[in-house]
């Protein structure tokens, strides 16, 4: 579904991502792990068009999205969340989802004006369902910045889902969560997978990664050092060395 081929990103002399190749299959949860600064978030940002790539290519569902502008990546079917939550704090919970409803199937069939102004009726039912799914139904009118941390994380996930993407990129969604919240997040990811969404999960929290992913790739200094099932990765000596600094 998502194919990254020989992808590189250099910031000055630093090779943040170095000849990285990945293939995420449709319907799977693919984990991307690695120590701090290993290039995980940069990879997500490259896929999403935040930075131009230095070399290599990114293909999604057969379409070359390597040089797609950031706002068009969603149209291709990829939505994301951010490592440090980036909600629209002064908008209400409802409005946060409303602006994100650049729904894929509505995009072509509707006129520019109605897409820009309206969508109130069309989106209302979908937004309400999404709020319920996220456990935020009672917070609909609240400003996003007044939400508790866990609620903000859930809202950001809901916002990414609002456009009904085919694939989700989750950039450290468990950061700052307690064990109970991580458990809920794992359930949510399994539900999304069951709903047919392909997921690329960038994460530090191992219990989450090992619990929900089908396959994992490990990065270190921008290079892929291992790839396999969670079991294979746990037993891989190169991975242990990267994480613990000793063989």
């Amino acid at each position, binding site marked *: 579904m998502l194919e990254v081929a020989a992808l590189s990103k250099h910031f000055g002399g630093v090779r943040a991502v170095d000849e990285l190749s990945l293939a995420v299959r449709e319907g799977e949860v693919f984990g991307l792990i690695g120590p701090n600064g290993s290039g995980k978030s940069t990879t997500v940002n490259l896929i*999403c*068009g*935040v930075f131009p790539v230095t070399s290599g290519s990114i293909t999604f569902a057969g379409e070359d999205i390597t040089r797609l*502008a*950031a*706002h*068009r*990546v*969603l*149209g291709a079917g990829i*939505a*994301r969340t*951010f490592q440090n939550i*980036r*909600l*629209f*704090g*002064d*908008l*209400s919970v409802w*409005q*946060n989802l*409303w*602006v*994100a409803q*650049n729904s894929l199937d509505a995009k072509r069939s509707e006129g520019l004006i109605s897409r*820009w*102004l*309206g*969508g*109130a009726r069309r989106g209302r039912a979908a937004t309400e369902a999404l709020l319920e799914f996220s456990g935020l139904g009672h917070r609909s*009118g*609240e400003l996003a910045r007044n939400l508790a941390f866990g609620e903000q994380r859930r809202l950001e996930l809901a*916002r*990414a889902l*609002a*456009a009904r993407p085919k694939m989700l990129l989750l950039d450290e969604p468990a950061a700052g969560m307690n064990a109970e919240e991580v458990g809920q997040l794992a359930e949510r990811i399994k539900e999304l997978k069951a709903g047919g969404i392909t997921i690329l999960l960038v994460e530090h929290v191992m219990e989450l990664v090992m619990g929900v992913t089908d396959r994992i790739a490990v990065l270190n200094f921008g290079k892929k050092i291992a790839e396999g099932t969670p079991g294979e990765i746990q037993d891989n000596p190169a991975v242990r060395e990267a994480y613990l600094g000793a063989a």
Partner: protein
Amino acid sequence: MDFYYGMAQLIGVHTLLGLSAYVVLLTGQVSMAQAGFFAIGAYLGGMLTVLSDWHIVPAMLLAAVATALVAAIVGFPALRVKGLMLVVATLAFGEAVRLFWFNFDYQVAKGDIQVGPLGGEGFKQIRFFPENGWTTGEVALFIWFWVVLVMLALWWMDRSRAGAVLRAVGEDELAAQSVGINLTSVKVAAMGAGGFIAGLGGAIYAHYTTHIEHSNFGVVLATFAIAYPILGGLSNVLGTLIAVIFIQGVLVEALRFLGDWRNLLFGALIVLAMNVRPDGLFDARVTRLLKRLLGFKADA
């Protein structure tokens, strides 16, 4: 009575100017070009009624549309830069517009006098209102008809998805892109809408003063334009109106005895206000309070 009508006219026109900056400010852009747009609307509107003998309403609307086009065209290159660089770029554009009118001559004979813009001497004889026998009160009413119309349109826009999209861009451009919002088209649209409103206000201004010149549209006016929505806050359009009333109605009149020192005090007051109330004088909390005092049901 004429004093109050004059006041009402001034406040009305400045409200349009402030609202033109409000729309652009919603997307997080501080534009110092609004006085330039205002000037374009003023000169074009005046030329249409004086030189082409148009009625004021179509003249205003055409001037506003033309200004919106200029604003959108300026928007493309200007919006590639952000923050302070955008302030400088838009300031430079505003000054360029002012200097254009400083050098622009286009006079035709009308009866036994020459009419039309005459460079540094300005554009005199924009006499649509007196020629058609409008009283000062009627002119004030006419102005406020347009002010109310624009405010209602913006109020409705604010509550539609478009308003949320503008604010989303103003808050976090990266997140806005990630939900599929095209930053360029949103910013250019906001700039165009702001240009339309400024052009409309400028055309009205030209007609009620009957005489405009380049120096009316300098940095001071540009500063006022952006100060209104900043002081008024971005909660809704009423903040801008209240800020205009506060500055033009209260400060300017009450501090008249200070003479030239008054302008210095403005600067100080704006700095003070932005420090004490960073979200504007009328932020969400004050708006809620006012709504409750006025008997509206406070909504979330």
